[in-house]
């Protein structure tokens, strides 16, 4: 048997974008592998019995053109950058699912983000446009070249007039909008359907009517969208929901009515779970189809072996199907005017769902396996694994199983897990690592987690839990506003106590703690409040919420909401929730992992904590990553992901492994 290695994720196939053919007989999906040059995506086809690869890699996105043909956007050479970073371009290809290579169809002067088929000849797409020339796609070749030249001359400068002007993963988003276009594939004619200052977050089209969530702004890019209905026949456009009322998530058509998940954020702030609404386009009447305080519309369960996802909500005339996380496992809910019911409970995490051939298909993880495509037959109520990307790999690899247990915290119980090395020996003593998830509104579940499996394979006991603030247990449990570092910290410490009680083989002098994002915040907090951890690895962390609010990509939406204060109303309240304040109490040697292009938790946060503890005489190290964002551990370059895990593991080995002290 092999152990889980530091680069095990190399051998994983990441699945996403599951879409059924129009006749519903089969589905396509994207398969992706992590390569030195980047993530290589190709298109696969599955009819329930057979799965086959359709394209070589370089695929970005696709739509079914008809039952026979798929249209996909691609960069056909891996690692290839845009021919000009100043222009806008997407190449479309067409492939016949019955065989033959893909053929280049058309090259569009649009940076396409999302596409949908409108009719036999036309597509609706959103594309990223820039305020300096939102009509780039509508210009002549010569005019476009002028724009490109002008942008090139500006490459040394970044002018900012909006806020926020950065977005993690995208970099500087100053002046960018997602604009809706109608594209004629026959003659290449392009028509803009939304205004230059509008940004279309999502759209869906049915019967010639486009439903879209729209943000129109000049300076401040808020969180709340409006909902717009655009009739492509009459060219009439109506605001169904005014901008500023709600934060709108998934949208769809159902029996000619607009259906959407949205939250008003009045009760629980920016992380409030959405409710499902149905809106009569004619009368404007809104009814709530599902009034819930629970997580709905996506999976909250984390792992580091996925890349991309897919639709987690399906709208149809009969009902709305939606992924929902209950504590630490996923369900698929069926919702209609009569109520909601779980149609499938999934002991793991779901990344995409689709109805194919009367069955419910899903891409997901369960049972410590990597991602596969599964089909659930409502008639037999059985689940069948449709793809087998990892059977062989997993059969020959030693994989540890997390043991779930609950810790009582008076009025509530915490879900926690212990991951022991596969060759766990009761007579030995072990070092252990507490791993803390980000969010804080996300959740750990019982799914394969590479970094934890690797540490278990390296002889560590890994323990992790969902403290107060986590997702999966409703808005109230997730509400941590204004009390960061209090109840969540106490939960984590009580959980650690319980783990030590349960597993006497853990050497209490050899405990490590790590986490990223909120988990890095909590790591910084923990080292300032207890000396029980002998080493810490603080990833993409937060040190000082005052600077965070002013520098990250969601300072005046998420951060101020979570702090329940801003620097003008309660600077001290913010400071009291900032780990930097306690840097003078720290003793634990700490390694900081941070990316230069992290705009979620800017690198200056890790730097502040690093400098503060070094100033106070604590042993510390930083490893900073160029060309990476907040997503380093999930979507970073292959060798960067290996280096990240190497840095942390070396640090823990140095301070926690017995040999290090002998």
């Amino acid at each position, binding site marked *: 048997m092999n152990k889980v290695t530091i680069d095990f994720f190399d051998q994983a196939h990441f699945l996403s974008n599951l879409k059924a053919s129009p006749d519903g007989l089969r589905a396509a999906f994207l398969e992706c592998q992590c390569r030195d040059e980047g993530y290589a995506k190709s298109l696969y086809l599955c009819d329930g019995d057979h799965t086959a690869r359709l394209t070589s890699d370089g695929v970005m996105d696709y739509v079914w053109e008809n039952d026979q043909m798929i249209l996909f956007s691609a960069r056909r050479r891996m690692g290839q950058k845009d021919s000009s970073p100043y222009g806008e371009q997407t190449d479309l290809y067409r492939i016949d699912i019955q065989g033959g290579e893909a053929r280049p169809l058309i090259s569009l002067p649009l940076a396409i983000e999302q596409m949908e088929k409108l009719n036999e000849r036309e597509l609706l797409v959103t594309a990223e446009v820039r305020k300096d020339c939102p009509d780039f796609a509508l210009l002549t070749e010569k005019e476009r070249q002028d724009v490109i030249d002008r942008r090139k001359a500006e490459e040394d400068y970044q002018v900012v007039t909006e806020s926020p002007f950065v977005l993690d993963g995208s970099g500087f988003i100053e002046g960018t909008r997602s604009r809706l276009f109608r594209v004629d594939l026959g003659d290449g004619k392009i028509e803009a359907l939304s205004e230059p200052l509008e940004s279309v977050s999502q759209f869906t089209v049915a019967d010639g009517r486009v439903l879209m969530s729209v943000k129109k702004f000049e300076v401040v890019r808020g969180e709340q969208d409006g909902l717009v209905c655009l009739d492509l026949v009459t060219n009439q456009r109506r605001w169904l929901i005014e901008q500023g009322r709600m934060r709108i998530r998934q949208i769809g058509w159902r029996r000619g009515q607009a259906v959407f998940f949205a939250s008003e954020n009045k009760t629980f702030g920016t992380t409030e779970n959405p409710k499902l609404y149905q809106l009569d386009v004619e009368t404007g009447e809104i009814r709530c189809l599902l009034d819930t305080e629970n997580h709905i519309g996506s999976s909250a369960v984390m792992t580091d072996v996925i890349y991309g996802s897919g639709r987690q909500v399906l709208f149809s005339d009969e009902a709305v199907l939606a992924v929902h996380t209950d504590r630490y496992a996923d369900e698929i809910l069926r919702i209609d005017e009569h109520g909601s019911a779980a149609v499938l409970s999934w002991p793991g995490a779901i990344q995409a769902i689709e109805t194919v051939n009367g069955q419910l298909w899903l891409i997901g993880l369960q049972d410590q396996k990597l991602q596969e495509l599964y089909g659930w037959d409502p008639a037999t109520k059985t689940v069948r694994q449709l793809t087998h990307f990892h059977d062989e790999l997993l059969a020959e690899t030693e994989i540890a199983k997390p043991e779930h247990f609950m810790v009582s915290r008076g009025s509530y119980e915490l879900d926690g897990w212990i991951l022991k090395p596969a060759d766990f020996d009761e007579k030995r003593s072990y070092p252990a690592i507490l791993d803390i998830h980000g969010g804080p509104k996300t959740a750990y579940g019982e799914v394969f987690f590479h970094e934890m499996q690797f540490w278990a394979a390296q002889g560590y006991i890994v323990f992790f839990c969902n403290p107060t603030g986590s997702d999966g247990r409703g808005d109230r449990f997730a509400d941590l506003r204004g009390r960061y570092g209090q109840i969540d910290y106490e939960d984590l410490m009580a959980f650690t106590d319980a783990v030590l009680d349960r597993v006497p083989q853990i050497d209490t002098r050899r405990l490590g703690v790590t986490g990223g994002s909120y988990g890095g915040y909590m790591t910084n907090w923990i080292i300032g409040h207890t000396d029980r951890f002998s080493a810490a690895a603080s990833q993409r962390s937060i040190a000082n919420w*005052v600077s965070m609010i002013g520098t990250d990509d969601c300072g*005046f939406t998420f951060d101020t909401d979570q702090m329940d204060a801003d*620097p003008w109303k309660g600077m001290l309240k913010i400071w009291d929730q900032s780990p930097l304040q306690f840097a003078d109490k720290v003793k634990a040697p700490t390694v900081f992992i941070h990316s230069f292009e992290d705009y979620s938790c800017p690198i*200056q946060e890790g730097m502040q904590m690093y*400098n503060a503890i070094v100033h106070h005489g604590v042993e510390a190290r930083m*490893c900073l990553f160029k060309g990476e964002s907040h997503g380093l551990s999930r979507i970073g370059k292959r*060798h960067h992901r290996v280096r990240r895990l190497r840095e942390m593991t070396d640090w823990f080995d140095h301070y926690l492994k017995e040999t290090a002290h002998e």
Partner: protein
Amino acid sequence: MNKITIDHFQRMQFLSALVLSPAGQPAWVRTQIENDAYTGQLFVLDHDQPKQLTSGNESLFVWDDEKTLLFISNRGEKPQPEAESTTFYRIRTDGGEAVKVFTLPLKVRQIVPIKQGLYVLTAQIDLTAADYWKMSEAEREAVHRRRKAEADYQIVSEQPYYQDGAGYTNGLRSRLFLYDEARNELKPLCEPQFHVSRAVVSPDHNHLAISGAPFVTIRQPKEGLYRMDLNTLKSDCLLEPGQFSIAEIQWLSETQILAAMSDQKRYGAVENPFFYTLDAHTGKRELLAENEESLGSALGSDCQYGSGKQTQMGPDGLFMVHTLGAFDEVRCLKADGTWRTIMQLDGSIQALAVTDERLWLIAMLGQKLPELVCFNLKTNELHPMTAFNEAVLADCYVAEPEPLSIPASEFQVDGWVLKPKDYDPNQKYPAILNIHGGPKAAYGPVFFHEMQFWASEGYFVMFCNPRGSNGKGNAFAELRGLYGTIDYDDLMNFTDAVLAAYPAIDAERIGVTGGSYGGYMTNWMIGHTDRFAAAASQRSIANWVSLICYADIGFTFDNDQMGADPWSDVQKVWDQSPLQFADKAKTPTLFIHSFEDYRCLLQEGMQMYNALVHHGVEARMCLFNGESHGLSRIGKPSHRVRRLQEITAWMDRWCKPATENKS
């Protein structure tokens, strides 16, 4: 009369690195701007005429003998970023091309000639390959491969780990080497961890005085002082690290070292140094002269490039430049501890070199650009020796700074006003208040391109040295824990006084700008008064709490200036932070910041910008790729133009009448 244009500085020539030959012939570096870059060439004074010796790009040289210069240059080969290498050339001053003489596997930063063919070199080494200098080619190749493989990562294990202008410096040290050219032999003179600041050779060339300190994690700003015997290469510590911040060392005699240093106990990190003598063998230290004044020139200008020595042993003591109020002077500290003023200058001094008879200066006289000038110590006559920039300002409107001072407690705050081009007392004019950085720096009535440009564009320009500035002694410069209080009052009182004295200024159309501390003060002002119609906040500070924890000088300068740190008194730090008052701001504000500013990080401008936008204030940022805190002085020329364009366009938009905007 023509206008001073936005790119006028591109026509200027800048002088630096003035060094005299054994017989007293001056050589220097002349920097000019070509193809959007700075290049420096070596010059000597030949029969009282400047003579250009080299035509490459040079910045570092020494005199080998009366007729020969040894210099470093990058000619021909493209430098490999992973390699450590420096190539030396010789050129004769009486004719002939430069000849390549040797290449060393070191990044040489300073040359101290002992005698011809024997040099003490300061080189930047990298602790992850500290033995690079003595490795075989194959071993070096392995280091290069490793550096390439590590290019995506920045490991940090020290403090500070970056330095503005130098980028990431983690694991780098300045190490001393002795190079014997005849034997082609390189010997390190100190341990790899030891970081050298200064090395000065004794009069008879037998000893070296070294200031520096070893460090593993935290770089100690208070360094030690050492004496090395150049024959035995043995060294002794004369002063342990951790006691004094050392500003300058010189040999008084073969047995005595003069050190300008401060224990920083009275005025903190910016305290002006006292002068001490140290016995070169016992280290016995005696206070030679107390001193409350600046060492070196405090006067800023944006028409300088490169630097030069501002202290040197002269005929009867240590000659040094210092700023007295708003003018520079040269004074001499004699061995008996008494002072003598050598000369006072209507202008500023960038470098000095002295012989028994003559004092050579690179100086800006009156409203002129830098030139080499000679002061005869016998006759006390001053002669300009070069005219590099004579034509640059010819036929241009150069506003004469009109002095205007105000009282401030027991002090006087000096300021100046530039009148706009084609000034007509019956017209109304917009104005710009310009605030210098530091805060311990000073304006003087010297040529300042940005201000002269604004005057040509029809603005009154006003600027002063509020409390906290340099040039008036320690007590005047003291601002610790007082940021935004007395300095703010001085600037407001000065503005009032200017408005009273110049009724042609339209009080509704005043803009304010400044960089670094000046950007801090700009941010502060817009949160405290609405009297300004527009603000341009350059390389600014918004939040000292974050700045202390991420700036390159956070725990050596910033916490000292605040009089607190985030653990001793966060409220005190916050109370001096402009961010706190962002909710009061109404002034439309432009932010100028560089991505590689490690002194006042980009995130400071961002915090203030986002806060203003959040509170509904009109704001804009222009951020510069590939630039440091020094954008306005040493930035890429096209970037300097863009910076001034941005600021001027912003001022024009808010301070000029709409009709004028359209033209």
